[in-house]
Structure formats: C-alpha cells, structure tokens
C-alpha cells in the first residue's frame, strides 16, 4: 500500500466538499478515480500534495509510505513533491515557464531536490527526454519552440524525472483528442512498467479506465460510492450512480464491457 487515504474530508468555510473519503493505492498499480466534474476528485488529488487553496482545509489522514502527509510541514512536503509524488495536469501548453528553456526546468527540479553536480543533472535531463522519445537537443529550446505533442512528452518526462513512487495524473488526457489521449496513457503505462510507480489517474473518461486501470473508485458529490477491481465494477456495477455513469459513457453499444475476454492471461 503506497498511499492510503483514510476518512479524508475537505471543507471550506461553509460547506464540506470532500466528505469522509477513504481510498487506497497499491504499490505499482494503475488506480482510476472516476467522477463527474465537481465531484471533488481534483481537490482530493491536490490534498495529497498539500496543494489545496488556502481557504480549504483537509482533515483525516493521508498515509504515504507510512507517514501522514497532512501532518508534514510545508518544507517536508516540498521535498516530497516532485521527487516521491509528482503530478501531471491536462494543460501541456502552459506546463513550462515561457521564458525558461526546457532544460532549465529539468535542471531546476533536480537542483531543488538536492542533485549538486551540474553534469549529472544534464545527463539525467537528456536521459529523461530520450526516455519519452524526444531528442535531447530539445533541452536548449524554449517552450514556444516545441509542438504540442513534444510539450506533452516533455511534461511527462519532468514528472517522471526523479522516479516518483506515486504519479497523480489529474485529468491528464481530458484536453486531448482520443488518439493523443491514448498515446499519453500508453507512454505512462510503459513508464510505469519500467519504474514500478503507482498511478492515481483522475478522469471521467471510461474508455481510458476500461483500457488501462487495474482498480477504480467512483466518486460522487464528495463521497466514494463504489470501489473495486475494474472488471467487477464495469461488468457488475453495484451502485445506482455507477450504473448511470457507465450508461452515459459515449459508446455506440449501450453496454461497456470491461474487456476481460480480450485480455490474454
């Protein structure tokens, strides 16, 4: 169990947005968190890294590698973010500071996480870019000189740069067309196989869930309504809301099979 969220509530001054949520992510698995917009899944992911907006307060426990993240100081969290836990968001175009080179970003992230040798940083950055299928020469380029696809890969490379144990992909494919979305996920899954990191994948797209997830949780209005293995939930949804969500998924046939029979053991 790499991450275990226990009875987490996130509340603003007036209302509770995430209510008593418990969720576990196992070592090396692909866990999907599914829900409509506004169900609180993004806030949940932000609370893991202590990234909530200042007007929101999280209570409960978020246990990562055996310690409660909500009790960590902001300095300790800074050291964790980017190195042990990293994030991927949907907007790749704006992922890099416009006036800094791509290599500058790679260099800075390693520097703040304690890599002192400049030549090691450089080698690592080049290796990271090459591992996502990009030319290391891109390190000298600026964000506006890269195409959307290149930025996307480079952004993923920065997230994986320091081999995190947990990768949180917050709607990482939402803004992409389905082919690019699948390409990003293929890349993530391939990197996951290499590094063994766990992925918490936040989405509302059932197609991705069906294809890539091991387990999933369904979230509605700040509560988890159903959790379990992918095949169990997709083929035999227990909760009314899960059934509704699956029915609303954009597929031609009215049923969305988990794909159990297609998989080779």
């Amino acid at each position, binding site marked *: 169990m790499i991450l275990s969220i226990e009875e987490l509530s996130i509340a603003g001054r007036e209302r509770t947005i995430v209510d008593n949520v418990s969720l576990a992510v196992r070592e090396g698995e692909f866990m999907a968190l599914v829900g409509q917009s506004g169900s609180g899944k993004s806030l949940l992911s932000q609370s893991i*890294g202590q*990234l909530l907006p*200042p*007007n929101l307060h999280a209570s409960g426990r978020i246990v990562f590698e055996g310690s409660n993240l909500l009790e960590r100081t902001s300095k300790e969290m*800074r*050291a*964790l*973010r*980017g*190195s042990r836990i*990293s*994030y991927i*968001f949907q*907007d790749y175009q*704006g*992922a*890099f*500071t*416009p*006036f*800094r080179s791509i290599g500058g970003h790679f260099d*800075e*992230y390693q520097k*703040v*996480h304690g890599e002192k040798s400049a030549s090691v940083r450089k080698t690592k950055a080049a290796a990271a870019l090459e591992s996502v299928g990009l*030319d290391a020469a891109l390190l000298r*380029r600026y964000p*506006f*000189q*890269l*195409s959307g*696809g*290149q930025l996307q890969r480079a*952004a993923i490379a*920065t*997230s994986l740069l320091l081999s995190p144990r947990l990768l949180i992909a917050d709607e990482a494919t939402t803004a992409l067309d389905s082919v690019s979305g699948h390409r990003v996920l293929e890349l993530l899954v391939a990197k996951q196989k290499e590094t063994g990191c766990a992925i918490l994948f936040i989405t509302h797209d059932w197609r991705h869930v069906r294809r890539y997830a091991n387990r999933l949780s369904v979230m509605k209005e700040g509560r988890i309504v159903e959790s379990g293995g992918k095949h169990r939930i997709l083929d035999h949804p227990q909760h009314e809301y899960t059934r509704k969500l699956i029915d609303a998924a954009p597929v031609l046939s009215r049923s969305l099979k988990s794909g159990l029979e297609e998989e080779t053991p």
Partner: protein
Amino acid sequence: MKSMPARVRTRPSKSKKHSVQAIVAALFALLVIAASVYTFLYLKHDPTLTDLRGRLLGASTLHPLGTDHLGRDVLTRLLLGGGQTLGYSLLALGAALVIGIPFGLIAGYKRGWVDKVFMRIADGFLAFPDTIVAIVLSGLLGAGISNLVLAIVIVKWVSYARLVRSTVLSESQKDYIRIARTNGLSDARIMTKHLLPHIAGHVLVLASLDLGKIILLISSLSYIGLGAQPPTPEWGAMLNDSRPYFQSRPELMVYPGLAIVSVVLLANMLGDYLRDRFDVKKEVQP
C-alpha cells in the same frame, strides 16, 4: 516532429516608428551623459564659484552659454545639474522599485489576508498626492533634495506594488506556476525565478514612463525652493535663479527649461519603445 518553425516576429509600423525614436533617444541620452561625465571629470569652471565682475555675460569662447547672475558658468551648471536631476530621479525610482516590487510580488502570490493587509497599506499611501507629501516632508524635515527624494519614493512605490500585484495575481493562476509548486519549488524561488522575469517588462515600461514625471517633479519642486538648495546646480533651481533676469537675459531660463523638456521627452520616448518591446500580447502569442 523534428522541424521547428522559426519564431516569426512581425512588427506593426507604429513600433517601427518607436524604435527609430528609441535610437534617437539613446543617442541623445548618450550625448548628454558623455557631456555630463566630461564636465564632471574636467571641470573648467567651479559651478559654485561666484564672480560678481563677470555676471550675466553673453556667450563667449570661455563661457559658451554665458554666465548667470552670480557670474557662474551656465554650461557647467547645466551639465552638472543634469547629473543632479537625473541622478536623484533614478535614485528615487530605484528606491520605489526596490520597495514596490517585493511588496506586490508577495501580496499577489500569497493572496488571502497577506494580500489584504499589504494592499490596505498601499492604499493608505496612495491617498497622498505627491506634491503635498513633498511639501509636508520639507516642512517637517526641512527643504532639501534628499527629503524630496524620500517624498517621491513614498508616493511612487505604491503604483509599482499595485502593478506587480495585479500581474502576479493573474500569472500565478497559470499552470506553469502550479506545476512549479507540484514539483517542489519553494515560494521564494517561484517568485524570483518564475514570476519576477515575467513582470520585469511591465515594470520597466512603467518605470521609464515615470522617470519623466519624476524629473519634472524634482525640477518643479526645486523651482519653488523645496528641492535642491543653492548653490547646488539643479535645473529647477536654475530656472528659479534666473527668473528676475527674464527681461534682460531670457536665455538663462530657456537653457534649463529646454534641458528639462528634452530629458522628459527622452524618457517618454524610451518608455514608448519599451512598451512596444515588452508588449504583453506579443509575449503570450508564439
């Protein structure tokens, strides 16, 4: 994937005009600075030495612009006065920037109650018009150019704090700042390395446009006797000194007046150019 479109920069003709202006301005500024430095290093005439026998002389090879009512060389005083006026203006501007930028940066980045407290302080300062503050300060601390600079700083830093804050407010919502945070960068690092360079352009434009205003302010307050005290050569003070001789020797007022006008124009031209150069829209669109 490999081919990279070169960044195409098409400038409208207006900014071309401004870049011509900028070259003219830069040349003129260089000339003025060179002349000031030259005068400073090789003083032919003591700018404060009075010579009552040689007062109000016309132009000659010894005194290219003549002498004033106390027999002091006008050209020397004019050039040294330029150094005074410009120097103190830049000092005031620099101090306003040093206070205003970090103030706005922290307020805009931290938001919440920090922002509220910081901005109410700024609003408090904004309530005083610059001339009033200058007059009050010279009343309290005595007339003098250092008090004048202080007064200008007190009034001017607020506009920088506000500008920086508003830019940071919108900029820090963008994803690259969020991603910098999720990658474990400290707030201080994000502010200095990822936000500050972005706002530098905006600040530079406002500063260069302000420079003209500050020069005018220093000159005009010196003219009414609140700034530079005699015998310091300063353009506003020189204007004031030559006022009684306007009928007989009008050029004594024309020289410092022209100097003020041209330097203020120069600063504005520079500001126009910088505004084009750091156009926000151009920056956002690749």
